[in-house]
């Protein structure tokens, strides 16, 4: 009986590990929605709205070494408003394919924010992104 209880406890613990291992998704729908709003804001030339959806590091990378504000610099990102056709979420990170673009997001206290946008695949290396926070 004691052996059975110990075996069941080990199985339950490993089961919990598997469930935890699947990662806590903060919502594919929410991540896709934020990515779509960012792309729409850039397409509509609304730099302030687009910058409001970026992480702090992404806002700094958009301005870069120039004196241009985020709201001005972000409009240089080549975005085309298109429907979201794939959202992948793992833990607090997400990848959204929207039109021909790939957007990476991270889930913060205030919700999903864009960490990288205008991303193009590089063989055997991370995506090269116009906005890279």
């Amino acid at each position, binding site marked *: 009986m004691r052996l059975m209880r110990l075996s069941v406890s080990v199985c339950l613990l*490993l089961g919990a590990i598997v469930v935890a*291992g*699947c990662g806590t998704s903060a919502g594919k729908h929410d991540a896709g929605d934020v990515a779509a709003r960012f792309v729409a804001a850039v397409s509509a030339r609304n730099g302030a709205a687009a910058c409001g959806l970026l992480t702090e590091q992404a806002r700094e990378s958009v301005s870069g070494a120039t004196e241009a504000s985020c709201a001005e610099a972000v409009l240089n990102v080549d975005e085309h408003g298109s429907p979201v056709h794939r959202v992948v979420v*793992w833990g607090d*990170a997400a990848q959204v394919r929207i039109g021909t673009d790939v957007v990476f997001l991270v889930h*913060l206290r205030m919700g999903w924010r864009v960490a990288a946008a205008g991303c193009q695949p590089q063989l055997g290396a991370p995506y090269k992104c116009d906005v890279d926070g």
Partner: protein
Amino acid sequence: MRRFVRDNGLTLAFLVLLVLALVGQAFSGVAEFNHQQVVDGGQQLSLWQYVSSSSFAVDVAENWQSEYLQFALYILATIWLVQRGSSESKTLDDIGIQSDEAQKVGRYATPRSPAWARAGGWRAALYGRSLGTVMAFFFFLSLAAQSVAGQAAYNVELLHQHEDPVSWQRYATSAEFWNRTTQNWQSEFLAVASMAAFAIYLRQRGSPESKLVGAAHDATAQDS
């Protein structure tokens, strides 16, 4: 109660150490994880969020699978392999699964033998393989848990680095998975090899893992 603790002290002591080590791993792990989150621009986690994350899960599972593998292999290997002079080995003329008489199975069982050993037949055959089977079962279960949790933790890392996530099949054949796995295996095999060899020449008075202090170096098994 006092008798229960005395009679089960070995198991209880190591279960307490297991809990303490897991708690220590949780606290040190969340500190390291949150430091990395600052670098990656991610959200910091509370202790409870961290212990229910894939990152903690894979770190636990990868250690558990290697421990169960060590014991499963050790239990099975010591049926057929011997080490002259070691307390960890059977005597050299005892190689193999041994006779029913030596193992007290079937008609050779005593009144105090377990029921399935007394029953003989398929029950005794199954019961006689239960220890290695259960260890192997928990090894495969832990390895599966490691692969699932590991894929999730790896994909979080890939997305933070702006790379494509991978499927479970790709993760299970990846360098990341096998690096984690084999670095645990090498330490387990080192421990068994060390124990088998050290037990030839070294002694620990009072421990059933050691030969008697006065036993000869080439005497094999504990009671020589």
